[in-house]
């Protein structure tokens, strides 16, 4: 991506803002336990969990590993695991 002059950005540029190498934990989703309530999709501050076949699918390119999805999940279907470097 070429830099814009003067650190400017147009709509949609947030998709360039991928997570760096600094993430410590990442969520693991267990589809067996998932009750399909959509809470994790709603709560994700990065908006990087989307629904596929009624199940939540995280995009790890953007996930910052904050753990809110695991905290909010009423079914205990999300577990934070140490990132393997």
């Amino acid at each position: 991506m070429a830099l814009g002059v003067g650190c400017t950005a147009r709509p949609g540029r947030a998709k360039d803002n991928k997570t760096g190498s600094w993430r410590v934990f990442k969520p693991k989703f267990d589809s067996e336990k998932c009750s399909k309530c959509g809470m994790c999709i709603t709560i994700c501050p990065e908006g990087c969990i989307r629904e596929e076949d009624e199940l939540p699918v995280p995009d790890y390119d953007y996930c910052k590993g904050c753990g809110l999805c695991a905290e909010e999940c009423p079914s205990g279907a999300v577990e934070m695991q140490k990132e393997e470097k």
Partner: protein
Amino acid sequence: MMEIMEGSHAVAHAVKQCRPQVIAAYPITPQTHIVEALADMVADCHLDAEYVTVESEFSALSACLGASAAGSRVYSATTSQGLALMFEVCYNVAGMRLPIVMTIVNRSLGAPLSIWNDQQDSISLRDSGWLQYYAQDNQEATDLHYIAYKVAEDHDILLPAFVCLDGFILSHTYEPVEMLTQEQVDSFLPAFSPYQRLDADDPISFGMYATPEYYMEFRYEIDRAMQRSKKAFSAAGKEFADLFGRDYSAPVEGYRLDDADTALVAMGSICGTAKDAIDEMRSSGRKVGLLNVRTFRPFPGPEIAKALSGVSRVAVLDKNISLGAKGAMGIEVKDALYGSGIPVLDYIIALGGRDVRKKDIAAVVDMAEKNQGDLFYGLRKEVL
């Protein structure tokens, strides 16, 4: 047309001719006469601009930043503590590549409180990404504004610029100044065409957050633009000379340097005094010359090294002090001459408006010839 004018009024007149669309400034001695004159011009309908009255310098430059991002040609002026209050915004303006031109009427920084001239204020902003041009006299202070706008707004540069003139010594002094006509200015300085601007139909954000993956490259880009501005300054200066006969194309200007043993290096109005002192010393057979540095940023290191290659010693007159080190210009001239073997002696002089006369310049040359340097010149031992 030649007129006898106060420096501030000549500058205000030049700014008016550059047709700024937004002016936001806060009055502060010794810059007040410039913004007073511009406010009068706007109030009397001689200048079609939005004059934004603000409650502080921080707001003044913030208003300028917004107006420039929205696509206007913008002007401000300040000095000393006012510039200190703009510090944060200065870095943002340069980082967002907004070509604002601001006059700095050089004044010392407190404490102790002083309204008198030295160059500590603009020198303290030397790392901010603003171009810095220093005027020797009111004619140059006036003309540099036209050139500063031209260079700053070049789409290949897009950097803000300081035009610096010495407070009181130039700003409040009446000198003959040859003013251009509006038609002449229009023929040299085209209407402002923003490279990019805030537009509801084509949304864009300025000054975005940059992660460690991007920040350094942005800073590199600003530095490249700084380096490119050398050529743009020379080209604009050359064009100005072709049109109006006054040549400012050189970033450094030598005076009687050809066979000089001792070269003085200085910026601003002190050069006028130094030239007179050099003429007197030359008539008594002493080989002294002067190098006036017109553009402190970008720093003309190679040009200085070339101009001073034949001298035996260099005496830098610094109207500033980087406390705990030396004068800023002394440090950088030394860097430019590194490896040449030419000794560079630094003299902190004229801080807080202390007068510099021809005898002081002669005394500095005497000291340099005895290899005494890197000192505060003219300290009053009786008050220490």
